C-alpha cells in the first residue's frame, strides 16, 4: 500500500464524511458534440473530494424513465473558493442523457465523495499524466494536486482526432505542460508514443505516472514505470451498484504481490489502483 500522505484512506474519515448532497446546478453546457461540463454548488463535505475520487449521481428521468441506479462520475474540478464542483461527462446512455437535461438552478443529488483517489508519493517532482477520452476528466484535479505539492506535470492527451482532445485548457490552467497525440496522424500509437515519452523522461525524469482510459495506455505506462523504476497509478471503471463498497458489484481482478489474483471493489478499494496491481483497463 503506498504512502497515503496526500489522500486519506476511507477508513480514516471521521463522522459522516460521505453525504447525499443536494447541489444547485450552476451550469451544464455542451463542450463538444459528445461531452458536457456540469458545475454545481456543493456543500462542505463534497468540497473535500480529492483527485481521483468520484460522486455517485442520481440522474433525472428522461422519456425512458428514471434511471434506477446512480451513475459514478469522477471529480473533474473542485473550486473550494467558489464552493463548486465540476463533472465532465460523455452523454452515452439513459443516465447521462438524464444528467444532460439539468438546467441551472435545478438540483443534482450527488452522493460522495467516494473511493480512494490518487496518491502522489512523497517528494514527487515530475508527474506524467497519460490519459485518453473521458478518462482525462479523472486526472484534471491530479494536475492541481501535483502543482499544490510542488511537482511539475506533463500531461499527454490521447484522442481520436484533435477536436476531441479534452481538458486541454483545464490541465494547462493547472500548470501542466500539455502534449497531444491523436489517432488521425498515428501519433497515439504505442510504438510512436514510447520513444516520445522516453525522450521526455530523458529530458526531465518522471517519478510517478498516472493513467486512465485505455488498455494500450495502461500497458505503455506500466512498461515505462517498470523500466524507469518508478511507481504509478491507474483509475479504473466498472459497472456499479452502490458506490459505497457494500454490494461487491464493481469488482475487478488485481494481481497480488505474491502471485495470484483477487477481486477488488473499484468504488471502495479504488477507483485508483497501482500500475502493478491493475490487470488492464
Amino acid at each position: 500500500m503506498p504512502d497515503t500522505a496526500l489522500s486519506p484512506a476511507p477508513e480514516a474519515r471521521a463522522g459522516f464524511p460521505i453525504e447525499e448532497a443536494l447541489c444547485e446546478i450552476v451550469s451544464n453546457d455542451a463542450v463538444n458534440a459528445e461531452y458536457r461540463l456540469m458545475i454545481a454548488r456543493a456543500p462542505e463535505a463534497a468540497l473535500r473530494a480529492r483527485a481521483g475520487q468520484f460522486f455517485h449521481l442520481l440522474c433525472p428521468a428522461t422519456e425512458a424513465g428514471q434511471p434506477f441506479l446512480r451513475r459514478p462520475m469522477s471529480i473533474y474540478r473542485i473550486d473550494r473558493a467558489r464552493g463548486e464542483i465540476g463533472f465532465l461527462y460523455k452523454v452515452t446512455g439513459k443516465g447521462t442523457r438524464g444528467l444532460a437535461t439539468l438546467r441551472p438552478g435545478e438540483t443534482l443529488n450527488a452522493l460522495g465523495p467516494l473511493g480512494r483517489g490518487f496518491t502522489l508519493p512523497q517528494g514527487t517532482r515530475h508527474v506524467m499524466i497519460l490519459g485518453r477520452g473521458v478518462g482525462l476528466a479523472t486526472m484534471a484535479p491530479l494536475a492541481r494536486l501535483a502543482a499544490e505539492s510542488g511537482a511539475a506535470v506533463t500531461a499527454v492527451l490521447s484522442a481520436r482526432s484533435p477536436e476531441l482532445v479534452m481538458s486541454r485548457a483545464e490541465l494547462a490552467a493547472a500548470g501542466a505542460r500539455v502534449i497531444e497525440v491523436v489517432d488521425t496522424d498515428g501519433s497515439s500509437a504505442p510504438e510512436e508514443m514510447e520513444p516520445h515519452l522516453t525522450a521526455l523522461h530523458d529530458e526531465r525524469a518522471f517519478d510517478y505516472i498516472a493513467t486512465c482510459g485505455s488498455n494500450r495506455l495502461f500497458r505503455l505506462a506500466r512498461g515505462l514505470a517498470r523500466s524507469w523504476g518508478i511507481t504509478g497509478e491507474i483509475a479504473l471503471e466498472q459497472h456499479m451498484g452502490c458506490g459505497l463498497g457494500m454490494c461487491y458489484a464493481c469488482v475487478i481482478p488485481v494481481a497480488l504481490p505474491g502471485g495470484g489474483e483477487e477481486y477488488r471493489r473499484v468504488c471502495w478499494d479504488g477507483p485508483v489502483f497501482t500500475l502493478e496491481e491493475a490487470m488492464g483497463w
Partner: protein
Amino acid sequence: MVSSTAPDLSVRIGSLTLKNPVMPASGTIAEGMTQVIDMGRLGAIVLKTITPDLRQGTLPPRVAEYRDATLFSIGIPSKGPDYLLEHTLPAYAACDAPLIASVSADTAEDFGKLAAYISDPRIAAIEANISCPNLKADGRAFGMDPEATREVIERMVAATRTPVWAKLTPNVGDITVFARVAEEAGAEALIVGNAILGMAVNAETMRPRLGNVMGGLTGPAVKPILLRMVHQCAKAVRIPVIGCGGITCGEDAVEYMLAGATAVQVGTANFIHPHTMTEAVDWIAEYCTRHGLSAAREITGALRPLHAPATAPTETV
C-alpha cells in the same frame, strides 16, 4: 409529536427485542454505510453472509439495471469467519444496534460448524442464508429442498445458543412448506425472503448481460411477490416473519407489516438512497401517530378485509 405520545416502535423477534422494526438485508450494507448514516438508529444490523472458506464470487459484470429493479450476481465473496470476528464486528462496535451475522456453506454440517465458530457475545442472532441463488449450479440452493432446509436449521440450532433465523428463498412453489419446516427445526424467525432468480440478455450483442448469466432480481419490482409470500408465511407459522423485498420507504415497510411481518429488511434501496432505513423508521412513527396506534407492533397482521363479509362471503382475511 410530543414525546409522551411517541409510539413504541420496539418489536420482538424471538428472544430479542429490537428498538424498531427496520434493518438492512444481508449483503446490502458494509462498513461504508457508517460513513453516511447513523447505523445505531436501526433495529438491527445484518451483516453480509460469510462462508467457512474464502470465496471470490462471480465474474463481472455483476449488475444489470431495470426500470424498477436490479439483477445482481455476486455469488457471496467471503473473507471467512476470522475476518468477521476480527474486522467486521469491531467496525460496528460503536453502533448502538444488535449485530446479526449471516452464514452459508456447502453442507448442512458446515452450516452448523460455522454457526458454532462465530458464536460470540457480540452477535445477537445468526441468519441461515439457505437461499442464495448463486451458490449451486443452475441457481439451486438448500432452501429449495424442505429436507435440506430442516437439516441446516437443526444443525445450526444444535451447534449454537445464539438465536438462529432462517432466510427463505422465494424460488420455491409453496413457501409455507419451508416456513413450517424452518419453524419446526428451531428457527426463532424467518426472513422472507431472498432475491428471485432472473436473467438478462442483450439482444444486439446476443450475449448475457451478467458474467454469471443468471442473478438475483431485487428492488421494488419484486415487492408484490414477496409481500404475498410474507402474508402466506405469517399465516402458516407462529414465529415472527421479517419481510424483505423491494422496500424503498416507510410505506412499503408498513405494507409488509400489515400483511403479517413483524419487522422488515431493506436491501437494494440502500444502494440508491442510503437514508432509506433511517427515514423509514421516522415514517413508521408518524404512521402510528396518524392512525392512533400506540405501538408499531400493532401494525403486524392488521390488514382488514376489503369487502364486508356480507357482500363477500369468501373473504376470510
